[in-house]
């Protein structure tokens, strides 16, 4: 009874979309393992709207988007176990099976076996320690997501005078949320000269409420013993170093940190999967298969997304490919081309494409390394140009999704390169 065709680790948007797609493709013997006590993952605390325009063609809030997928999971009779945490994923020696060790009150500590595994564990926030902000360590310093959980799911009132470091989307969303909760948000400080959040969030979360966004600024000291009393914010130079004499004191009882997300790949590493240091996620093929056969990865554990719609789409592909692996196997006979990140491109997902497994439409997703205006995105293979697309503006905070048709790719001989061409330079 502990044998499955497919185990899906994580019941957030990625895991649910992967499960629904795998089930549709004919995999009946599957199970979602979710560590929280409800399906939906981080969407449950994202009570704001802006989700689902691609997937459902309407604007939903996070909980609505989650509930729609949870309903699909339930309607299709896909089994899921809540309050169940996966402790380890391992290859089984001399077999193509994977051993997945889980813990729950119901099962105790148990090992389940599966032909295929989809990794959909999501990501976590970069904590204060990793940011190396000096100062004291009083109460009142939270990562933005933790604050979001406390406010939206626990109903906690966490502060009245707020400073936010980092202009990631969660930080921006929390600036508005705290304002609506009756707090005053004094400023959002961002180390980089551009925001790492979506433009719409700057408009509707900061501009609407007159909250200043201080670009090229950072928190240089934190004051307060038991409770936070205030922070010093200083301007930074082009090397992101604080400029002497520019620091200003902001009295506050709450400091929220929104300084980036890190894919949660401890299980992935434990499974012996090769990690791409640029994304901190697995390195995957066009089928979203990792370096370990039969182990797939999708959603924020693969690379941090800004749109849940992209997560769902990507994860559905992972589910379909896992089904294919289980039912007929993935063709490994053909040529595999590397997908290389060229000028201005930080990484690509996938990082390799095997020509036998092309879909009618193939996605290449990436982020740029800086802000680019009036440039062209180019995909090429040797001398051959596969795609050229003009873009008025490209920013690191917005993932780019390129779609390449099968016939463009199927006869290629050379590795593929994705780069930004700076027009007129």
């Amino acid at each position, binding site marked *: 009874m502990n044998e499955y065709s497919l185990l899906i680790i994580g019941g957030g948007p990625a895991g649910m979309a992967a499960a629904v797609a795998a089930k549709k493709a004919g995999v009946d013997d599957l199970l979602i393992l979710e560590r929280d006590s409800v399906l939906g993952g981080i969407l449950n605390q994202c009570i704001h709207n802006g989700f689902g325009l691609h997937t459902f063609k309407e*604007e939903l809030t996070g909980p*609505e988007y989650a509930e729609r997928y949870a309903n699909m999971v339930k309607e299709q009779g896909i089994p899921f176990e809540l309050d169940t945490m996966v402790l380890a994923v391992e290859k089984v020696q001399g077999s193509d099976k994977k051993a997945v060790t889980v813990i729950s009150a119901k099962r105790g500590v148990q090992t389940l076996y599966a032909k295929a595994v989809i990794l959909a564990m999501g990501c976590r926030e970069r904590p204060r320690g990793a940011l190396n902000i000096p100062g004291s360590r009083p109460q009142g310093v939270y990562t933005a997501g933790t604050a979001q959980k406390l406010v939206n799911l626990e*109903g906690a009132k966490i502060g009245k005078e707020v400073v936010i470091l980092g202009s990631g989307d969660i930080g921006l969303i929390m600036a508005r949320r705290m304002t*609506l909760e009756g707090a005053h948000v004094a400023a959002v400080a961002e180390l980089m000269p551009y925001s790492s959040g979506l433009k*719409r969030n700057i*408009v509707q979360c900061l501009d609407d409420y007159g909250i200043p966004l201080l670009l090229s600024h950072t928190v240089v000291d934190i004051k307060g013993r038991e409770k936070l009393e205030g922070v010093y914010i200083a301007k930074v130079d082009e090397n992101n170093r604080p400029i002497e004499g520019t620091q200003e004191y902001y009295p506050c009882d709450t400091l929220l940190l929104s300084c980036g997300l890190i894919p949660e790949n401890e299980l992935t590493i434990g499974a012996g999967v090769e990690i791409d240091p640029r994304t901190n996620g697995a390195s995957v093929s066009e089928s979203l298969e990792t370096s370990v056969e039969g182990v797939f990865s999708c959603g924020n554990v693969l690379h941090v997304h800004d749109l849940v719609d992209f997560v769902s789409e990507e994860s559905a592909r992972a589910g379909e490919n896992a089904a294919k692996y289980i039912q007929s196997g993935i063709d490994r006979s053909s040529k595999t081309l590397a997908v290389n990140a060229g000028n201005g491109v930080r990484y690509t997902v996938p990082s390799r494409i095997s020509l036998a497994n092309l879909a009618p439409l193939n996605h290449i997703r990436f982020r740029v390394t800086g802000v680019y205006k009036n440039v062209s995105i180019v995909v090429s293979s040797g001398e051959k140009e596969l795609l050229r697309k003009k873009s008025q503006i490209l920013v690191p905070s917005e993932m780019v999704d390129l779609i390449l048709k099968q016939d463009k790719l199927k006869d290629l001989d050379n590795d593929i390169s994705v780069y930004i061409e700076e027009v007129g330079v």
Partner: protein
Amino acid sequence: MIKELTCICCPMGCALKAELDDKGQVISVSGNTCIRGENYARSELTAPVRTVTTTVLSKDEKPIPVKTKEPVPKEKIFEVVEDIKFQRIDLPVKMGDVVVKNAADTGIDIVATRSVD
């Protein structure tokens, strides 16, 4: 007169340019990639509206996520939130159920965005 603004209808955040006449009426909109962008620019420059999302407490003080069923006038946001703040709702609720009627006299209802038992 040309006004520049960022569309907030979806995460694409299109950079819009709206041409206005002397009376502040929108003559044309450009830069949008869909019809929603044009509609947004027209409403934003004449009568801006926002969907409000927040939580309302159940009778046992559990926060339940809610939203305004339709966008409300921007200047009414705080009144709507204030109105919701003092309500205590009965459980269970289903996603989409109206939990507060006619919030702050905007004529717009507040609906639950998650089913809670």
